[in-house]
Each structure stands twice: as C-alpha cells, then as structure tokens.
C-alpha cells in the first residue's frame, strides 16, 4: 500500500510520517511512505490544513497528527 503525507515539510508532517511508518510496521503491512510537498498536488486532494494523510489515494485525515494507533485502525 502507499501512504502519502501531504504537507510542506513542517514538523507535524514529519511526525505524522513517522507515526504512519510505525503503524504500518505494527500492522505487519508493506507500506511505502510518500511525502507530498508540492502544494498544487496537496490542494489536488482538497486539503486546506496540513498535514493530510492519504492511504491508497483515499484522504483519511487533515490538519492533525494522528498517533500510530489511530493510523493503525485506519489501515
């Protein structure tokens, strides 16, 4: 699966990326973490507050840093 982190490289985006990685590992899934920093592409998902989390092209959260457990439930 592909997990995308939408955000311009702020601290929160890094934290969200780390949590997503931890969640995928905990769930035993092979996941590729992609950081999307281009805001045209970010806006393409209809996101106005970063960071956003996209799992397999589906936008699942905006504007907050989910914990690894919360992401695990979404996977």
């Amino acid at each position, binding site marked *: 699966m592909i997990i995308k982190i939408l955000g*311009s490289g*702020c*601290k*929160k985006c890094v934290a969200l990326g780390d949590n997503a990685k931890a969640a995928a590992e905990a769930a035993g899934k092979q996941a590729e973490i992609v950081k999307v920093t281009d*805001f*045209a592409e*970010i*806006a*393409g*998902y*209809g*996101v*106005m*507050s*970063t960071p956003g989390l996209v799992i397999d092209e589906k*936008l699942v*959260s*905006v*504007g*907050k*840093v989910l914990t690894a457990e919360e992401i695990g439930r979404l996977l």
Partner: protein
Amino acid sequence: MNLFGWLNDQLLRMQWLSELVTAGVSAAGLDPATRLGGSVHFFVYDVIKIFILLSVLIFAISYVQSFFPPERTRRILGGRSGIWANTLAALLGTITPFCSCSSIPIFIGFTAAGLPLAITFSFLISSPLVDLASVILLASIFNWSIALAYVAVGLVLAVVGGTLIGRAGMEDQVADFVRNVPVQDNEEAMTRAERLAFAGEQVAEIVHRVWLYVLIGVGIGAAIHNWVPANIITALLGQDNWWSVPLATVVGIPMYADIFGTLPIAEALIGKDVGLGTVLAFMMAVTALSLPSIIMLKRVVKTPLLVLFLAVVTGGILAIGILFNAITSWFI
C-alpha cells in the same frame, strides 16, 4: 492605582520582570544606566516577556481557532459578496492559523469553491497582518490606542485591498489547475480535550518556528536602542523626511518574519523618535508581504493579478504610514 492600570502594568507590560531583570543586571556587576547594561537589560527583558506572552496568547488563541478550521470559514463566507462579506473575511482572517505556509492551500481551497477573489484576498491580507496575539503584544510594548489603531488600519487595508482586487475583474488570472481542485469538507468534530491538545501543539510548534526570529529581532532592537546614535536613525527615518515611510516599506517587504520578531525593532525605533506611521509601515510590510510568500503565490496566480496584489498592499501600507505620521501625536 486602579485595578485595570495595575493589571496592565504588571501582567501586560510586566513591570515586575523589568525590575527583576534590572536587579539581575546590577547583581552581575553592570549598571543598567550604561550602554552595555542597558542593552543587556533590553535583550533579557524583551526575550522573556515576548516568550511568556507568546506562549500564553497562542494557547488561548489556538483554542478559539480550533472552532474555525478553513473548511468552516469557507462555508461561512460561501455565497456572500459585497463590503460586509469582505469585512467578515477580514475578521475571520484574524482568527486563523498563523502559518503563512497554509495560506496558499487556503487560497486554492477558497477559489476552487467559487469564492470571489475579493473575499479571498481580504482574508489573505488580514490573516498574516492582524491576529489577536499581535494586538495584545502591541498593547504590551506600546499602549492600547496604538494596538487598536493597528488592528483597525489592518482590517481596513484587508477590506479595501480585497475590494479593489475584486473590482479589477481578474477572476481568470488564477492558475488553471486551481479551478479543477475538488471541494471537500473534511472537517471533523473535536472534543474539548482535542482542542486543548491542539492549542498545546500550536504553542510548541510556533515557539519552535519563531524563536530565532524573536532573538534576532530583539538583538537588532537592543542594538538600535543603545548603540545606534539617534541622529543616524533620524536622518534615515525621521519624520521630516518624505522618504522615511517608503524606505521602511521597501526594506520590510522582502523580509520574512513573524510580527513577534518585528515588535522589538519597532519598540526600539519608537524610542528613537521615529514616526509611528514609519514604524507601522515597516511592521506591516514585514508581516503582510515576504519574498517566500510572493514566490509561492506566483504559482497559483498569473502575473497581472500578482502585480495588482503587490501594488494594492504596498500602496495601502504607504498610505497608512503617511497617515499615521501625520497624526502620531494622537497616540504617543
């Protein structure tokens, strides 16, 4: 002394802290009345004061902000037009997140949803320029009449600027992809615990982001305060010179800093008898426009609209500066 005066002096202006730092500087063997002692006092006192106020204010304001995510703001503004819609947009701009990095996604999201450029630009001008934290900080460093005047002219600039940009009929001067962006309402309800956690995160994030600018700003402020001779400052930025406001504006535009970093510089300049209008123009130019934000905006709007935006905001800042220099005596 009346209660309000006491609260103002001790909580907002932190006289207790000033006295504490004076005692500390003296204990370290420096006389606060000397140049070096005065610089050290200015630096230590301003740094501590700004960080205390910053943390408390951002916490309180972020809590309020958590009720107004961009999606909700967009819904509130949707379908409105006219001067009152611009005013509403400017007001909502004062309670939105501080980070200028989020203003471009907001521009795209608003425009994609069909909000007129007039409304979107009123919001975009007001958002970095005026926020509740800056009002309280201005009141702390200067006084309440300057703080309220700053808010008032900031909002007027946002309303008038947005209206002018709307009148220009440049709805087609937006990058083509913007119109094709899907409009989603991703808003999720937050519990009180989540709002408090959000406010705490905002404090950590913003302090992390601005601490260096604040230190640099206070450093420059301390240098101006005690080391740069008043006649040099007066020669450059004195009220008798016609170029003082344009110079302050042109120097401020490319600079990227939060209002928190510019305040100590403003404080020191006012202390050197620089006109209030010149100082306000400098602060507004630094916060409203910066090279990074112009470069980002260039990617979502076409050149004529970008030029119009820069011209309107720069013109507005010049007008505000000249006006306030003429009426400085009302405030100080």
